[in-house]
């Protein structure tokens, strides 16, 4: 099994982990957004969506464990690669100039990543790991967004989500070697579209909730 370790532990192997876990998160964000859209249908629709989810039995804790594992892999591998890349250039340039390849999204990947890491902890502590007896999930959400500071934090972080996804999604395909003259231009457009959908889709929810309170 040495071959497996050597392959996965190599530079490209680590990138493979980033790509696969990142794509899984894109899948998760899609279902999370679809579920959250029930908020627009009102209190009952959202509460019943949450109830349905929790009535699925062991699937939910298993999925949560899976997400946690993906999260740990994505964060640890990302930090390892960031450290190795930093070490690869001990003396920095006096003058740095963009040659035309870098974008705001690609350049800020490690930083938006760290922001998203902190936000996910904050988000889970605020809406997931709390006492839910005698209340409904809709009340928790509307309580949260009754504070303007929370609305601002969520909206700003969703811009970072969009940036992270816009570079991450197509990058994952490039890392997997899934590059093709016919499909790559489409994947790059899809990457941009997906980042806008996530950014706007999630970002409008706090604004909507706070506006109807």
């Amino acid at each position, binding site marked *: 099994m040495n071959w497996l370790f050597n392959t996965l532990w190599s530079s490209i192997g680590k990138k493979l982990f980033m790509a696969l876990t990142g794509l899984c998160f894109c899948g998760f964000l899609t279902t999370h957004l679809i579920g959250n859209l029930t908020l627009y249908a009102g209190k009952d629709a959202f509460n019943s969506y949450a109830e349905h989810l929790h009535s699925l039995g062991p699937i939910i804790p298993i999925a949560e464990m899976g997400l946690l594992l993906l999260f740990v892999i994505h964060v640890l591998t990302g930090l390892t690669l960031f450290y190795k890349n930093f070490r690869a*250039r001990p003396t920095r340039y006096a*003058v740095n*100039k963009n040659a035309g*390849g*870098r974008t705001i999204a690609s350049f800020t990947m490690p930083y938006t990543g760290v922001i998203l890491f902190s936000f996910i902890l904050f988000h889970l502590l605020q809406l997931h790991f709390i006492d839910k007896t005698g209340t409904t999930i809709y009340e928790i959400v509307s309580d949260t967004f009754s504070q303007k500071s929370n609305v601002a934090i969520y909206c700003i972080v969703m811009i970072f989500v969009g940036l992270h996804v816009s570079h991450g999604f197509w*990058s994952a395909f*490039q890392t997997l*070697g899934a*590059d093709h003259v016919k499909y790559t231009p489409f994947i790059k457009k899809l990457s941009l579209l997906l980042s806008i959908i996530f950014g706007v889709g999630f970002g409008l929810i706090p604004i909507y909730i706070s506006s109807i309170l």
Partner: protein
Amino acid sequence: MTNSETKKDINLTLKVWRQKGPDVKGKLETYQAKNISTDMSFLEMIDVVNEDLILEGKDPIAFDHDCREGICGMCGCVVDGRAHGPEQGTTLCQLHMRHFSNNDVVVVEPWRSRAFKVIKDLVVDRSPLDKLIQAGGFISANVGGAPDANAIPIPHDTAELSMDAAACIGCGACVASCPNASAMLFVGAKISQLALLPQGKPEAAKRAISMVKTMDELGFGNCTNEAECEADCPKEISITNIARLNREFLKAGLFSTVAK
């Protein structure tokens, strides 16, 4: 009419990285480049500055160069933050001074990477690229009479793709311009050049595994798909070659019979 009165001459202020040896601390030093003809190449401009330095009894600026035709891959410095300077698809020896304006301040630095040690001033040790070639950038074939042309049918498009990758002159600009000092465009080009052709296929898996292993050991960074290398490559080699490297490596590591 003296030389300085001709319209085509410019004066520049250079800030050049000076470093006496690999283990000595270096720093940027300022020089005046006077009466530089805009028909000169960047390297010829440094030649002029060096002539003045020699006349003053000072140590001339050390820099790598050879063919000065843009094909050998010996020259290269980072000029104002761009590998091989501001022009697209050009080596430093083919960068002409007409792209600069009178009284410009130009910062000249060596390639920066853990893998490339500064030997002196702007000269870096690029032997890690040779080590990568030794690790797998070749094919093994019995010598003998030259084979007939077209004995092996290769579609024109495939041959062109391979040739696009083979245009790599090994200058190291991809490493220098990569925000992570990664050599994946160089390795990607070498892997692609050989893997695309039938002659390179028998050793493709062994080559991919061995070259990536060596690349990691030499301390190069990891690609983050920013495409700065493609933008600064004097031969404009595409990052699709990095995708092919990833594909070839994962295929070799996970599915080939090469066990290493």
